[in-house]
């Protein structure tokens, strides 16, 4: 099932299938491992509901949902 990254529940995992948009931020995130085919997990949501903690390429990174929504994940 394909979902936007910001819609994943805490603990859900999947594989990145697409990354929408253009520009520096996207390039930057791709550099941090957000490339097609990468394993990804939404670890947890911050106490106030945003941002979220993502696990990718063996490390943790936090993103706002705003940024996460451009990434589509095939949920396992």
């Amino acid at each position, binding site marked *: 099932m394909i979902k936007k990254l910001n819609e994943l529940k805490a603990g859900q995992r999947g594989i990145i299938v697409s*990354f929408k948009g*253009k520009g*520096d*931020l*996207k*390039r*930057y*995130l*791709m*550099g*941090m*491992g957000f*490339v*097609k*085919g*990468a394993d990804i997990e939404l*670890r*947890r*949501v*911050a*106490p*106030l*509901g*945003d*941002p979220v*903690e993502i696990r990718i*390429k*063996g*490390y*943790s*990174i*936090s*993103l*706002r949902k*705003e*940024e996460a929504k451009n990434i589509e994940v095939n949920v396992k």
Partner: protein
Amino acid sequence: MEKIKIALAGNPNVGKSTLFNQLTGMRQHVGNWPGKTVEKKEGAFRYGDYEIEVVDLPGNYSLSAYSIEEIVSRDYIVDEKPDVIVNVIDAANLERNLYLTVQMMELGANIVLALNMNKFASEKELEIKSNTLYQLLGIPVVKIEASDKTGREDLLNAIVKVSKKPNDVSNRLNYGKELSEHIQQLQEIVEENTLSGAPSSWMAIKLLENDKIIIETVEKTLNGPNILSDVKRIQKHLMEVFGEDADEALADARYGFIAGLIKESVKKPKIDKITRSEYIDRVVTNRYLGIPIFLLIMWLTFQITFTVGAPFQEIVETFFGWLGETIAGIMGTNWFSSLIVDGIIGGVGGVLVFVPIIFLLFLMLSLLEDSGYLARAAFVMDKFMHKIVGLHGKSFIPMILGFGCCVPGIMATRTLENEKDRLLTMLIVPFMSCSARLPVYALFAAAFFTAYQGWVIFSIYILGMIVAILMALIFKKTIFKGMSAPFVMELPPYRRPTIKGALIHTWERGYLFIKKAGTIIFALSVVIWVLSSLPMGVEYASQASVTGQLGTAIAPVFAPLGFGEWQPAVSLLFGVLAKEVVVSTFGTIYGVGEDGGGIMMALHDTFSPLAAYSFMAFVLLYIPCFATVATIKRETNSWKWPIFTILYTTVVAWAVSFIIYQGGSLLGFA
């Protein structure tokens, strides 16, 4: 002796500073990159017959044009052409770390890989075959431990070796036939037009990635439009082949290449173990506990900084008091002793009083940062900061510290990576009512609002916060328009901070404060003293002095705010030195000494209660003290922002006090 110029590069948090300190010891110089707010550390050391100069490049994940740090790093590699780049790598996080390595290879850097944090890698049960990695990349790979001297000799050996005989990495990077061909094609076009000093293949890649800086460079050249239309054509073709933009195809190709490297050179366990960090985070960023824990830690930081600091502060204060009296005693009362005692000791001493709390604060911040908690604090608070003021989660910490003292508050903005976030935070931190302003409120509240002292003072603090939020919103709509710094932040694993590391950090930052802020304060103190002592023969700081006359001249400006006499004007002028000086100036001017009911009685002749409240608001908001202004100068590395701060805070203070006084009068308060 032969010189070798090296630079340290790597992702944030991989132990780069630790290695830098280990290599250079105390022989280092901390400054800024020219024209940037990014910190630049340089140092030198001897190894055998070599004098090795080291530059610590900013911590980066990549070399795109995303942040100033990235631009600084790649410009350095292109323009300065260091002999060797030591790429420090977190062995526990090889895959992502190698992305930077690959980008530096594209840039033609002559690299030595220093694998650090090997202990954490073995905890994760990763086994890295450095020899295989070396053979695949054509780059020497050395295992080190930055925190002790493990691998130091091997590393230095490798550095000397590749400085003599640069690595041959041509054709190591393999991005697949299709991409390589088109990079090659574009590379030839770039070469025909002999563009800039950067490697042509790198320029080709950056053009394909739509890198804005490289595009700008090319646009300016004679044949620019043609080259760019070639770029467009190739991008379009790649889109047809790969079904994605060229920059995505490149990122995929790099990670693909890295995946190949990892497969050959790393043995890893089937499943990720749940790490200690994960267990800690389950508590520390927990839905219910996250915010209480954050508040508790902030409270502790604040308490430790200011309560532990207070007695030391008193010692410094007492010392300068004693020094002043002793000098006055020896030299008698003449202009020269007044210059030394009132001018220099008063001014510089007033700033050095901050040193104990600044060192403590930096110690606390280093511990929070090195342990990994700071990133969690930002994670927990981001939504709050983002919703209310459009700022980054990390801005919360400087603002809280501002309540103690704005100087460390402003210095704490260093933890913000984004320059605009940093500037904006610096501009609003001064509205957090620092502890130096409290004596002023205490005096006025006691004199005019006996029954409601606590509430009146509390309302001033709230007023400061409201103004800060409003100004942040205004700035976001005007000078920092269009900026919406995304919140992309690594949450590094928790690590036990080392005392040595924390002390080094503390010393580096604290020393800068003493050195740079000190010199500016010194100069300004002398200026103020001169103005208060001229013309010859007047009583220091009396109405007849230049300062007194200045006060008299500007006093009418304050009339609409309810305090148009010369005494408040002069005390505000002196208050710029340090805000508590407002109180002592009233003492001097009224000739009643600093404490006791004397000042209060005298104040009643000058102020009505409404005017008193308006004055308190003005003291809260107007020009932050010299130390703060000097710190902004030092942190932004320009005069633009400190001067802007002086002007805009004064305007804001005037406007707010005007509203308070005139509005209050209309409503019938007196």
